[in-house]
């Protein structure tokens, strides 16, 4: 007598084009348990960081994740700046903020589009992706690349924001804001979307805190936690972002919260351009050696709290850089949210966590050595005792 039916979802994922595998155990159509298998994307970034110089590491760490690259660069750079005792000019901080907020808008639009695709609403996917191209264009004119900003440099930024570019950004933002409001309305009112998302993958406030979830997932369960407000970095202490909180805790709340955050980002970019101080944000000389010490640096990425722990023993290279990405918490610890749901809802719940597998993977060093066929008891995984599958 077979008790469960086991269905593997992935590693070529149904919704996101990223390699993660969910082993779903089913009783009938109801999910009894989920094992999360990762490791397809492990690239040994932390080891590479130890081998390369401070400056090269900016580019290596920003390539941990393509979607939130400027945020990775920001966390690393602000940590290194603290170690070296360099203070970037205020204008550079504003430019970094603008780039990071543009990134947040396009990341939130992307995951909402992917969600539309996951629930079978392909028209909406295409529409959101069409408007997202406008944001990508803004990123291109501000930083020089559609995806990898590569604008951070120790002690400033690599290129200045020209006034005509700033004007263009403001002009396009008007269009984007109107579209964001429209899509938010679609997600609020559309019958199909509500039917697929409302009440699915519900996480209560206590559960979210117990499993140390971060970012929009945590805020959608009613916990106001945002590093931009709690521990302001860059220009956020002057721009004063508002925390968006929702209390429903289901998939729909997580998606709607992302639209609200994108609208808040639009406001932040407008304010940043309006209040931008004058000066030269490009550093004349790059500092290439740091003294002894260690630094703990954190930033609010589009997916939640991103933490870097940088240790230096002096010299041209870091001794150790430890990275903890938001997706690691949100994906590996979220196994409990699938229990009791239907199989068809599994991709929807996974998408609502905004999985960023390339972020997650880098952490699982042990995993490669032990071999991945190891079976982890589900309860242990959901209690967070075993962090590696």
């Amino acid at each position, binding site marked *: 007598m077979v008790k469960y039916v086991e269905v593997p979802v992935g590693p070529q994922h149904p919704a996101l084009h990223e390699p993660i595998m969910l082993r779903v155990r089913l009783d009938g159509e109801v999910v009894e348990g989920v094992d999360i298998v990762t490791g397809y994307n492990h690239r040994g970034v932390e080891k590479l960081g130890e081998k*390369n*110089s401070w*400056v*090269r*590491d*900016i*580019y*290596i760490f920003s*390539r941990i994740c393509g979607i939130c690259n400027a945020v990775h660069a920001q966390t690393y750079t602000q940590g290194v700046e603290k170690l070296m005792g360099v203070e970037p000019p205020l204008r550079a901080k504003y430019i970094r903020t603008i780039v990071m907020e543009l990134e947040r808008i396009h990341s939130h639009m992307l995951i909402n589009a992917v969600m539309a695709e996951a629930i079978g609403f392909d028209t909406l996917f295409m529409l959101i992706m*069409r408007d997202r191209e406008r944001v990508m*264009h803004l990123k*291109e*004119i*501000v930083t*020089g*690349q559609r995806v*990898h900003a*590569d604008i951070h*440099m120790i002690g400033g930024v*690599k290129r200045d924001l020209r006034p005509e*570019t700033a004007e263009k950004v403001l002009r396009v933002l008007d269009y984007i804001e109107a579209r964001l409001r429209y899509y938010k309305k679609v997600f609020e009112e559309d019958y199909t979307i509500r039917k697929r998302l409302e009440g699915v993958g519900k996480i209560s406030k206590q559960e979210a805190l117990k499993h140390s979830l971060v970012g929009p997932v945590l805020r959608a369960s009613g916990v106001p936690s945002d590093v931009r407000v709690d521990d302001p970095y860059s220009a956020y202490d002057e721009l004063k972002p508002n925390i968006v909180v929702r209390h429903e805790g289901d998939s729909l709340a997580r998606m709607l919260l992302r639209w609200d955050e994108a609208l808040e980002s639009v406001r932040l970019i407008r304010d940043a351009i309006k209040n931008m101080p004058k000066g030269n944000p490009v550093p004349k000389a*790059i500092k290439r050696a740091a003294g002894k010490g260690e630094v703990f640096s954190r930033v609010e990425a589009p997916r939640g709290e991103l933490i870097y722990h940088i240790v230096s023993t002096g010299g041209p290279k870091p001794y150790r850089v430890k990275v903890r990405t938001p997706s690691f918490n949100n994906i590996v610890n979220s196994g409990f949210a699938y229990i009791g749901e239907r199989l068809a809802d599994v991709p929807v719940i996974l998408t609502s966590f905004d999985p960023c597998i390339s972020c997650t993977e880098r952490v699982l060093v042990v995993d490669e050595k032990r071999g991945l066929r190891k079976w982890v008891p589900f309860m242990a995984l959901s209690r967070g005792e075993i962090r590696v599958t």
Partner: protein
Amino acid sequence: MSPKLKLLREVISNIFSRPATIQYPREPAAVSSEYRGLHYPDLNKCIGCSLCMVDCPANAIKMVKLPPDYKNPKNPRGIYPVVDYGKCVFCYQCVFVCPVKAYITSNKFDMADYATHNSQALSLKTIGRGGKE
């Protein structure tokens, strides 16, 4: 407004709107001049300091000897960088760090080909142009 009327308005506005698609191979792509595309060192300006090689995160830059019939008094070591576009990540750290601004940048992006290329041929073409592009 009733939902049906709203729908009708959407339909009509979409019938008369221009298609969003860029007919790329037939039309030129909308690339801004800011785009970080193909770049190569200008041999008239390069002083062979190797800073770009040191800072390249992808190890895409190799220092190579200048051709024997070309002498540049500003370049005493007689070496110049060659960028391997197969490895290059177009972060423009080399452009940023160059003390003499020797890199010629462009927004050329269509580099897809049946083999990978490097910047050697492009750099050698700059000889004798006296720093003009």
